[in-house]
């Protein structure tokens, strides 16, 4: 975008630091909260550096109009939108070609993660809204959207963890910010994976890249996505953990007065739950509404 390379670009070789002081393989600060929107079946709010996005999931519900239905599986329909004030120059309110393309690839990425065959003829509506941005909004949305799907209690093979990787100022780096994305030699690769099987479900690239560089970048991307995955798991556990209050309820409700030993059973159950989290299938237990 900005044409020529800047003269004041930092000397990476000497300092091994990036424009914003990060290391080559360091992500910007990432935080996720699930269950933030009462109207939605599942939702998430994510902040990743300056990026701020909301994700809401509605469904599975009857896919309408009828011709969009698939008798064999659910359709995962993503709506990626940006607010007018989420970019340096005001965006036109109506969606543009970029919005539609991103919606399409995000939907296709999530499709692999969801057991869509369990919900024929339905649609799972995923709505993501970017409210503030600074490069990497689509991977932020994908990361938030998969947390929202899990929050909605939709059965999934795995979460989708995503990040941007690429090249700027002649260095291979992870999670590019806007300044790096605008470098004259910038290469931007949004990538999304199913962390447990390491299957790649989102892959785009623009820029000029050598095969050898791609070989080096892919392992960096896997490592970064797995860091994102840890944050996603933590966000879900935060909402669905057994709180002390509910433990007390279980004690009083199930164990009864004379059965004090059941307290230890509750604790055991909790430990068992912890270990279950390690298993391959990620399923957020949905509280019956």
């Amino acid at each position, binding site marked *: 975008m900005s044409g020529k390379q800047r003269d004041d670009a930092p000397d990476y070789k000497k300092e091994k630091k990036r424009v914003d002081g990060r290391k080559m393989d360091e992500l910007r600060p990432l935080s996720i909260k699930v269950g933030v929107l009462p109207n939605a079946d599942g939702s998430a709010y994510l902040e990743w550096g300056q990026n701020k996005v909301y994700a809401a999931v509605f469904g599975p519900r009857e896919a309408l109009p009828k011709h969009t239905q698939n008798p064999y599986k659910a359709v995962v329909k993503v709506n990626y939108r940006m607010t007018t004030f989420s970019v340096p*120059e005001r965006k036109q309110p109506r969606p543009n070609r970029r919005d539609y393309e991103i919606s399409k690839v995000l939907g296709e990425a999530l499709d692999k993660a969801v057991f869509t065959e369990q919900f024929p003829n339905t649609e799972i509506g995923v709505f993501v809204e970017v409210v503030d941005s600074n490069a990497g909004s689509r991977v932020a949305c994908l990361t938030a959207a998969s947390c929202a799907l899990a929050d909605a209690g939709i059965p999934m093979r795995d979460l989708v963890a995503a990040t941007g990787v690429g090249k700027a100022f002649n260095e291979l780096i992870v999670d590019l910010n806007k300044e790096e994305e605008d470098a004259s030699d910038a290469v931007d690769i949004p990538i999304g994976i199913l962390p447990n099987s390491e299957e790649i479900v989102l892959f785009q690239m623009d820029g000029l890249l050598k095969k050898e560089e791609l070989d080096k970048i892919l392992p960096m991307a896997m490592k970064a996505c797995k860091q994102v995955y840890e944050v996603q798991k933590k966000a879900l556990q935060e909402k669905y953990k057994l709180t002390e209050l509910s433990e007390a309820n279980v004690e009083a409700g199930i164990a009864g007065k004379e059965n004090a030993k059941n307290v230890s059973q509750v604790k055991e159950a909790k430990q068992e739950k912890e270990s279950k989290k390690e298993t391959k299938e990620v399923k957020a237990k949905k509280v019956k509404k």
Partner: protein
Amino acid sequence: MRTTVLEYDLSKVIELAKQGKRLDGRTLDQMRDFTIETDKYKNAEGSARVLLGQTEVIAGIKIAVDKPYPDNPDEGAISVGAELGPLAHSEYESGPPSLDEIEVARVVDRGIRESKAIDFEKLCIKSGEACWIAFMDFYAINADGNLFDAGSIAGLAAFLNAKMPKLNEKNKIIKHEYAGKLELKRLPLLTTFVKVGGKIMVDPTYLEEKAAEARYSVATTEDGFMSAMQKGIGGSFTAEEINLMVDKAFVIATENRKKLLKMVKN
């Protein structure tokens, strides 16, 4: 959460209203509690996030250089947009602006515009050639009724912390540099009422809006003016009812304005 409305829900709301009660235990003249966070979105010149009960609205301001309208060569302008998207409620759809979106945007717009809170002449850069246009767009994030007042509160809070961009000699915006604040001369706030079961209540929830026969919004300023009014949906009000609502609106808006100023970083 179940967002479909059943006949039973509506009759319950109406029955309670007739006794002067509401589902959430509020009195008829009581607003839901609200919180405001400002300056959250750094790409916007001003921004705010408002939680009014379970209604969540975000507003952001972008200030751009444009050519003045030919009939007002010495004035800048403001523009207000609203989006009630599918993120906020299963009832909303994406697509071109719906009638509801246009109405709520225009009522919030008039409340600010007609109060002369913003001096359009001060938004002129060079007569007939360049002026500022302040775009305020607000988005429903979670819709549980009364997007009019939530949008109005979010919009005013966003305007209150809006910074003016800086220009170079060629009247192009210099990024990340600002030349002071956008000046506000008044603080107009909307107050919205609905009539349910013949009773008038302020700040309706989604369910109360569905049960409503008629809706009435009035924008009031701190110095005793009204800057916009709108009666909405079918049904009617008597002149006495209008008078009563306006009186109540001044009291409620004063309270809201106090709360707002406390929460907005200046």
